[in-house]
């Protein structure tokens, strides 16, 4: 199997926004890193570079939605929730994917696994019970989608 990079975005100090990092930790615990490269990104601008390199990428990210804790496969548009996607602090996943699409001469090999969360309102360490319960389900979904190739124009 060719290299697959599983990428998480989010901040552990922002409560449920850190669910992607928790899913990566779950995958590490399972020893699932053989052919997988697990990357925890602090800056979504790095996601652009990663998407422009050859190889498949599975992005694991929190998505504002209800009820919290659902595991979904959102579109890039659903990740771009702000009206002004690129600002100094707000270079989000949706903007990063849009920029990578614009820069790439070929279709991106990207799949997205999302976990719905309530809008973060204050800094907090740790996940809410419902989002924490979704972590192993999201990790299962990551491993499942790796078997299904899909490209993003």
């Amino acid at each position, binding site marked *: 199997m060719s290299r697959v990079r599983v990428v998480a975005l989010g901040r552990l100090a922002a409560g449920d926004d850190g669910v992607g990092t928790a899913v990566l930790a779950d995958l590490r615990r399972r020893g699932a890193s053989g052919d997988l490269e697990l990357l925890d990104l*602090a*800056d979504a*601008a*790095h996601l*652009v*570079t990663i998407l*422009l390199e050859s190889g498949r990428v599975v992005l694991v990210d929190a998505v504002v939605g209800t009820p919290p804790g659902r595991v979904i496969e959102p579109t890039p548009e659903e990740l771009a929730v702000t*009206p*002004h*996607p*690129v*600002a*100094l*602090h*707000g*270079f989000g996943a949706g*903007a990063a994917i*849009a*920029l990578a699409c*614009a*820069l790439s001469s070929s279709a991106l090999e990207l799949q997205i696994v999302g976990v719905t969360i309530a809008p973060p309102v204050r800094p907090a360490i740790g996940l809410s019970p419902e989002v924490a319960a979704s972590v192993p389900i999201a990790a299962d979904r990551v491993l499942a989608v790796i078997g299904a190739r899909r490209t993003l124009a």
Partner: protein
Amino acid sequence: MSETRTIRVDYLPRVEGEGSVTIRLEGDRATEVRLEIFEPPRFFEAFLRGRAAREVPDITSRICGICPVAYMMSACHAIEDGLGIRLTGALRELRRLLYAGEWIESHGLHVFMLHAPDFLGYPDAMAMAKDHGPWIRKGLRIKQAGNAIVALLGGREIHPINVRLGGFYRTPSRGELAVLLPELRWARDASAECASWASSFTFPAVARDYELVALRHPHEYPFCEGRVVSSRGLDLAVAEYDAHFVEEQVAYSNALRSRIVGRGAYLCGPLARFNLNFDRLSPAVQQLAESVGLTPPCTNPFKAILVRLVEITHAFEEAIRVIEAYEPPPAPYVDVPLRAATGFGATEAPRGLLYHRYSFDDGGTITDAKIVPPTSQNQLSIEDDLRALAPELIRIPHAAATRLAEQAIRNHDPCISCATHALRLRVERA
């Protein structure tokens, strides 16, 4: 009857934080200009009181996710100043290296993602990428080289955790730093190419009569140390800052704004640094600046994008110099025994002068804190820039005028979250 027009942008895009602008034009004159910062105040100065001085660098770094190093450095310098401690040797050099990384990260994002689209006529970087992809790719790689410096020295690339009073918790080996060199050398050359590219942009013909304010060091282009100087003769020790600069509040903004006592608006940031410290750039970077048409005096705020690219190149040169000469220090930090004191620190954040003042007691508990970020200092000049553009804003179609006004604000890369770090809260009790 003269034409009137009101330009209003309810939510300024491609700046950090939440603000809006209103410009009322009558004839070729702006009768009202309001940069309205409605991001909620954040009260950092108030909640620093009662905290331990050793916590201050980490707490203040949370004021901003794009320039946390600047807050850490100004805090460390202020507290160390109060205690009569001055870092030398490798620890001082590592601080300069960390600061260089932050300039590269911050300027890189601003130049390529936020500001270049204005000059090339695109609504954002995504639209610009279709036609100018190679430059965006270069910009992302340049920014990433800055992130790599901050991640290595700071422990992580956003909100570093490895800075402490007296130095660092851990210092890198020569080998760890040397790994960065090939990419830094590529990025230095790429930044110079990007400066040449940006020099082909069309710059509105504007010359402003700013009082420019920046640090000035005897030998270095300023990051962490120097005297506060201005283009109209100020030459102050950092400890004299409060006697010459005053903050005030206006009803329509949640950010304090600064004036020079008895004079008024001033400008800090890349344009000020460049004009006041051109001779402190390395010879190669001076030559680069001249080759792209930048020589002091340059008071066209639209050319700040070029100055940022020159500063990025200088920051890479400085980073390479520090790494090539690096010998690990005997210890990652020097002891900082606390006692009652008041200290003053100013460093050059990417957006300009960042002033901190702290008083603390014998137990090292903060009793008073004052933080003046660059965006607060530049607010009046940003409004004056818009006034100066009034004849052009009234002449061109409304949509173009709105775009030009936004671009003029982005010239200064305002960081609204920094500017709202504090708001004086007045409590009246019966």
